[in-house]
């Protein structure tokens, strides 16, 4: 197992290096001159040259990459191109914190709910309960987030007034304030994830229930709840872990639409505006974080999978 972990960590480092080079290369391909784009059409040649000099844009590309990577690893993420050239790191980490809050809240709602629904649908395969759960989860996954988001806002914010319609975030917020802000966006995200996770769980449960070891457990005289919880779920939930890990990656980097609908200051929105403004230092840092989140989520999922599956753990 130790060897397995070391292998996976090495692989993670390689993945990060390759993707960082890839991002860097891709940003070079973005059309237009950065300096002109940032400073505007009327900027003087001197100002343009000064800008390029400040941000090292005249250096050869590989050198720029090494400089940037070195800086990124030592905590100097560079300065944003936007007015006042603020430092990238505090800006991004604040957005990341908001995103993580939303992701955690979403996971806290969606994992128990979708596993519960999946297990119920699997245990009562082909019953009315299964049909209801399947129809519900499949129909909400078909709806785009901006539709479900707007419906939720109209009903629970404008209509009932239980939650705020837009997410103003202040540093003075306490736990309850956060809950109020996060509820509607996280429910919207949950509705997207629900079908993936619950369908996977349902399939896992149905598969495992057919296996001979379930019959062995039954004919040992074990009570039904013990057969389901100890024997069936232990194996049925293994594939679900992978699906959840993939959704974590999505929650970190892919919530643009939901953030837009609720005006939530997360990483996704920041990423989109960085792309629009060709704000390369900002863009690179955000993408690195998102990829890191994806890779870590997958690594944790694999380790968890290995830990729970003796066939992997002991080989």
């Amino acid at each position: 197992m130790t060897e397995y972990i070391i292998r996976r960590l090495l692989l993670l480092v390689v993945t990060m290096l390759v993707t960082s080079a890839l991002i860097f290369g891709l940003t070079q391909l973005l059309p237009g001159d950065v300096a002109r784009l940032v400073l505007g059409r009327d900027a003087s040649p001197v100002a343009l040259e000064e800008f390029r000099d400040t941000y090292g844009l005249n250096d050869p590309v590989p050198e720029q990459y090494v400089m940037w990577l070195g800086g990124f690893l030592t905590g100097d993420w560079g300065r944003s191109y936007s007015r006042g050239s603020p430092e990238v790191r505090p800006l991004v980490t604040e957005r990341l914190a908001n995103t993580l809050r939303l992701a955690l809240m979403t996971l806290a709602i969606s994992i128990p709910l979708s596993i519960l629904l999946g297990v119920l649908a699997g245990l009562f395969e082909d019953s009315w309960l299964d049909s209801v759960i399947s129809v519900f989860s499949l129909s909400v996954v078909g709806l785009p987030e901006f539709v479900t988001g707007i419906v939720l806002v109209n009903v629970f914010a404008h209509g009932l007034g239980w939650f705020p319609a837009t997410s103003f975030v202040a540093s003075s917020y306490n736990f309850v304030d956060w809950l109020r802000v996060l509820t509607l966006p996280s429910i919207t995200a949950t509705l997207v994830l629900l079908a993936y996770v619950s369908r996977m769980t349902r399939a896992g449960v149905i598969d495992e229930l057919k296996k001979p070891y379930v019959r062995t457990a039954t004919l040992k005289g074990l009570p039904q709840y013990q057969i389901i919880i100890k024997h069936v779920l232990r194996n049925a939930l293994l594939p679900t872990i992978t699906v959840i890990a993939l959704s974590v990656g999505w929650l970190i980097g892919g919530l643009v639409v939901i953030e837009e609908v609720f005006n939530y200051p997360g990483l996704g929105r920041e990423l989109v505006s960085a792309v629009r403004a060709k704000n390369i230092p900002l863009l690179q840092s955000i993408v690195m974080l998102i990829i890191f989140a994806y890779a870590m989520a997958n690594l944790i999922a694999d380790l968890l999978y290995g830990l729970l599956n003796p066939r992997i753990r002991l080989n």
Partner: protein
Amino acid sequence: MMSNVEPIIQAEKVNIDYRLNKVWLNAIHDVNLAIKPLEIHGLVGESGSGKTTLALALMRYLSANARISSGVIRFDGEDLTTQSTRQMRDIWGSKINLVPQDPIASLNPSYTIGNQIGEITRRHMKLSRRDATAKAVEMLKRVKIADPEDVVDRYPHQLSGGMLQRVTIAMALSTHPKLLVLDEPTTALDVTTQAVILDLFRDLIHNNDAAALYVSHDLGTVAQLCDYVTVLYGGEIMETAPVRDLYSQPLHPYTAGLMASLPRHSEQLNTRLSTIEGVAPSLADRPSGCVFAPRCPVAVEKCHQEKPPLEPADDGRMIRCWRWPEIASGELSTTTKPEAIGESPAPREELVLNVSGVSRQFGSRSLFDRILGRPFRPVRAVDDVSLTIQERSTLGLVGESGSGKTTLARCIVALSTADDGEMELCQMAISNDLDRRPREALRNLRMVFQNPNDALNPYHTVGQAIGRTLRLLADRYNSEAEIHVRVVELLDAVRLSADYADRYPAELSGGEKQRVAIARAFAADPALIVADEPTSALDVSVQAVILNLLKDLRAQQGASYLLISHDLDVVAYLSDWIAVMYLGEIVEEGASDAVYNAPSHPYTEALISAVPVPDPTDERSAIRLEGEVPSARDIPSGCRFHTRCPRKIGSICETDEPPWRDAGNGHYIRCHIPVDELIELQTMAGSKDTASTGEDR
């Protein structure tokens, strides 16, 4: 048997229905069955006979779409048919326990052996976790597992199939049940392991005052293990009898047919096996008269009209047949005398296949292993094997699972590319790589696979499947009409009518599919057919049809076979030459009879002795191989068999590779013991004292 003892379990007129397409269909009809303490009752039947359904239903365990529609199952003073599932949970695991068919799938992969055995004692004997583990260790000792303290902490995937089956036995016995249901418990195991497990059953059941219902399709193990036998066909009991009576004089035509369809190595090479024509009826169209009548060689009009009752005969026998009194008195013979097949042409001197020094390794060395400087330890599945097959002859290749026999076959047909070695087909050198083999080599070398269900494309009709081979490999057929004529001809050769050409594989039975696969293999007039376990997925009555067919086709077409099987009786029936493989190498080869009789390699001797003979009066003391087959990653030094060999002579076996010893007439044995000593040791093996060398543990 003590006749005045009350039975532990008694089923009366039990009927079980299945719900299919919203209709209840009767699957098990009017079954009576009683098992007394210390008795092992065999329940024999082919696939689809309902034996497993019945056995589990006697435990009152039914699938969701099944019900016991009538009848009584008396067990321990209660009628199980009236018990709720909740009530049954107190009986399951404490009074009636199951030993399942497939031990690997029947244990939860995520929990340790100790946990899974402990579960049953914690539930029923209210043991603490610690006591349950101690009890598990004790039970593992009873089933003769080495290092039980270590095994309780292991997971199922870390143990071999034989070990796992011992674990399930230990589990089933740990609550002192009154009745054990053994559901084909040795089907997934090698013969050598099976022999050890059967011994274990016999001892443990008697020592525990238990009784057992032994479900099996294998008449050999039933003869060796059981006291009483019930023969099931189409959901009905055909015959119940004490084991010796049943085997010495079967009174039902079905039982007689089953017995006669078994290949035995003593049989003449030119005789056919008796077969039971036709296929078992499906659940939806059971005949209204006798369920066996459509396939019965002695059925009369009455049999088709009226269902015979299950009638008692002498000494506890029961028979469901209108004509059993005639059979019992000897007036009516149930077995048609097997006709001789056309003379098999004598093998020619020329070699159809010459394989020399073929090796195949599996496994790779990762970068990580290289950095850590770990030695490369590949799985040496086939290790420097040479063999030859003469034209118009059959070479049988036998060995346990893991011996490398299937890998060797795959290397020969180039489904797997040999790492090393040379091959000649019809005296022409052929590449080890499939892509470099000429079309002529592909035409001359065809393969029949073990599982006919996977070997045919479900979206091609039989005609398309066979026609495709003709189009790709045979030049003689120029038009579709000519191809169709040839397809019909081939179907006729495998005894299938012309209309099968338009059917899809899903419309065929397993035996019919295998016949199509054989027709396809023969389509382009090959010189050699490699058949990998061609009958192991089939029932015995169907197996007989296929074996006859292979024999007939060899006589008619003059092809040669390389026949791979774990079943020595099948190999001996069809082969004129036998090679025995162990851990990737051939340890003995010679003419069929020579290999079967002394002198033999000690491994061959053990294999032959482990085959259960379908004759309850056969009381040869068998040689039992202890221990597990070593990993092909870690092949023992010296003689590969020394770790398990009952005839090991000393340290030379561990250090030196044994020489090939010539036993005459092309019979070679790879052993340190000289030929004449082997003869001496093995001809005495019939007497008790020498045989016990193998039993001393």
